[in-house]
């Protein structure tokens, strides 16, 4: 994967961190999610900085523990620090990450204008991750987690989550 601008992850530990997934979206690596801002190796110690998707995201504590555990398994000690700035945006989800979301059944975020149109004006723009139709409507602005909204497809009738745009 291509690294995001401003993100620094030392090569040696890249493959370890790639295996750590978001506990709420298990198919998605925390790297593809854009949650890891830096991981610097100092001898056998790793200094990791992560940023929350949403302030109250209950997954952050678990992600921190998972990172430490994964690194420990490979013989590294780690320190995980939570940073707030710059604030996370859905732009940081990589193309591979967006694909993983869709495969998992979560519609990936639209651009801000389109996002507003579907959430406020009832526009049918979100693609159903099951059948691909855009004949979908919002059921609720908040879904199973704070970062998602609840949608339903009027063609295949399946309910699904839409990952809200955050910029």
């Amino acid at each position: 994967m291509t690294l995001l601008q401003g993100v620094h992850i030392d090569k040696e530990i890249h493959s370890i961190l790639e295996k750590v997934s978001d506990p709420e979206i298990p198919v998605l690596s925390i790297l593809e999610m854009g949650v890891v801002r830096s991981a610097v190796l100092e001898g056998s110690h790793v200094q990791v900085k992560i940023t929350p998707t949403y302030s109250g995201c209950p997954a952050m504590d678990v992600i921190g523990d998972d990172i430490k555990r994964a690194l420990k398994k490979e013989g590294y000690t780690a320190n995980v620090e939570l940073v707030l700035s710059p604030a996370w945006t859905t732009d940081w989800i990589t193309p591979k990450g967006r694909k993983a979301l869709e495969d998992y059944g979560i519609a990936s975020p639209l651009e801000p204008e389109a996002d507003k149109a579907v959430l406020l004006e009832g526009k049918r723009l979100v693609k159903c991750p099951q059948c691909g139709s855009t004949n979908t409507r919002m059921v609720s602005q908040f879904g199973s987690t704070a970062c998602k909204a609840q949608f339903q497809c009027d063609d295949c009738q399946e309910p699904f989550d839409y990952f809200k745009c955050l910029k």
Partner: protein
Amino acid sequence: MKKQDLYNYILGIADNSLILGQRLGELCGHGPSLETDIACTNISLDLFGQTRSYFQYAAKLKGEDATEDSVAFLRTERQYRNVLLVEQPNTDFAYTIARQFLFDVFHFLFLEELKNSKDLNLSAIAHKAIKEVSYHQRFSTDWMKRLGDGTSESAQRIQTAINDLWRYTDELFHTSESDDLMIEAGIGVDLSALKSIYYKRVNQILEEAKLEVPESKWFQKGGKSGVHTEHMGYILSDMQYMQRTYPNMTW
């Protein structure tokens, strides 16, 4: 600038999110429908997340053995600095939405300014929080219109809620001594500059929701100086129970 003033200033911001988050959390499993239940508790979670960031910073300033938990849970009623609006009970869904709407409009304007704070920590929290609050504002504004422009029953209920809660809006713009010092230092938000924009925005939405703007010019205050309404004690007894009963417990 004294550390204590910055500490007080942070609590003034954080306590609003803490107490409103607690109020919304009461709806967990009790919302009028599954979707609104989830929405209210998600908003609660966002507010708690923001509160944690503020309290972690405040605890660091305080030093000694202060932690985010001790700041959140181990103060007495008079030491909480939240505005009276956020501690008002859920009563019914109209009150929950009206309270949320009246706070969200303020919260968004406030964070927009806090982004420019000279204090880098507060600025970072504001940059993060405002993205979440823009969704809160959309949710509550949307419901204001649905209830106001809905059935005669929903319109009457939301009008009653707005009329009842209106008296708590002016306090949003009051400042404490610490607030004034922080505004002077370029750290705090100049609330007086936000007031006319706030009422303009609120009045516009009320009009779109086919509701009347309350005419009462009498406003209630006290929360910012620690003098709360009778509801506050009940919130705290519920919220503080675990830490008071099992000191220093963690999840």
